[in-house]
């Protein structure tokens, strides 16, 4: 079955004023759609057809760069839309908050570490909060459309929160001011979804 561009769980303008409608529309209907179409084009009719995206990514070192780039782009954007919400922001609670406090000292020091990873990723890429195999939470970043599910990632594990720092994610509204984009991201984080991914 071909991969399908997921619908956004909210309207294009729902994240205003933090992330603008035009950015959301192009990001979803052009960039994410492009990765999805390109992924299908390289997977259809091969032995990868019908496999889950997670299964493909976990074996990515043995696959083509087109699968890596487009498969990563397909997965990453799907996660990104879901970990944001018009009713987002604030802080996590429960076991996720306990784990953040245990592994980073405090919620604020986690936020600072994540923001720094996002700000210092040179070129295009993503910042991640990752749950490692032993349950420990770590912050990392990856280049381009790589992610921590890939067997070639430096830091591997389950991504529970991701922030797109490709310039296309923020350039129409923030231009060169990536740190301003990172700071509004905290107002739209869907911590319930992040907690769900942490507990799964």
């Amino acid at each position, binding site marked *: 079955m071909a991969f399908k561009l997921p619908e956004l769980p909210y309207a294009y303008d729902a994240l205003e004023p933090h992330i603008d409608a035009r950015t959301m529309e192009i990001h979803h209907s052009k960039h994410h759609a492009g990765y999805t179409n390109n992924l299908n084009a390289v997977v259809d009719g091969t032995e990868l057809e019908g496999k889950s995206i997670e299964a493909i990514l976990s074996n990515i070192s043995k696959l083509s760069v087109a699968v890596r*780039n487009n498969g990563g782009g397909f997965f990453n954007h799907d996660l990104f839309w879901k970990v944001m919400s018009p009713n987002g922001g604030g802080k996590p609670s429960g076991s996720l908050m306990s784990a953040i406090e245990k592994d980073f000292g405090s919620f604020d020091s986690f936020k600072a570490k994540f923001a720094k990873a996002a700000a210092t990723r040179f070129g295009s890429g993503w910042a991640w909060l990752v749950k490692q195999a032993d349950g420990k939470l770590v912050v990392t970043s990856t280049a381009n459309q790589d992610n921590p599910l890939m067997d070639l990632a430096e830091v591997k594990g389950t991504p529970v929160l991701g922030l797109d720092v490709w310039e296309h994610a923020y*350039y*129409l509204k923030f*231009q060169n001011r990536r740190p301003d984009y990172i700071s509004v991201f905290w107002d739209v984080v869907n911590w319930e979804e992040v907690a769900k991914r942490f507990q799964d």
Partner: protein
Amino acid sequence: MKHNLPELPYGLAELEPFISQKTLEFHYGKHHQAYANNLNKLIKDTPFENSSLEDIVKQSEGAIFNNGAQVFNHSFYFLALKPNGGGQPKGKLMDAIKQFFTSFESFKDEFSKSGATLFGSGWAWLVVDNNGKLSIIQKSNAGNPLRDGYKPILTMDVWEHAYYLDTQNARPKYIENYWNLVNWEVVQKRFEE
């Protein structure tokens, strides 16, 4: 040694309609300037403090390389653009393009394709090797062909910041526009030097 941006030989509005004034204000005034500011801060009290920009590009690593190469790359890019540019090169450069790419059109296609298919942020380069052979190479992020022993003569920025305000996700449209701005006299001079 302090590294400064070159003065641009054209006004920021003069590349319109192919590259907007707003894009150049950010690209030259903010991005390029920030790389130069960062570089000047980073090299202080390091072995690169008095190095030429070219030596920094060839020898440094990490943040000094990223910022130094981005100063070089952007200067190299902006200085080979001009209002009412485009057309075709002449003389020895044109002869070499025909020799190594068959025709100017096929060179253009290959260079455009190199820019369009560079995944993520980076640059497409036309370079000359030690034997005078021309080739096209892609470099990610701040990558620069001086490190591989090539002499670069033309570059095209395909970081999204180079075109996103003007053409958004349509990188090929930016590339098509770029051909109307290339200053072939500058490229010919670099080739013949």
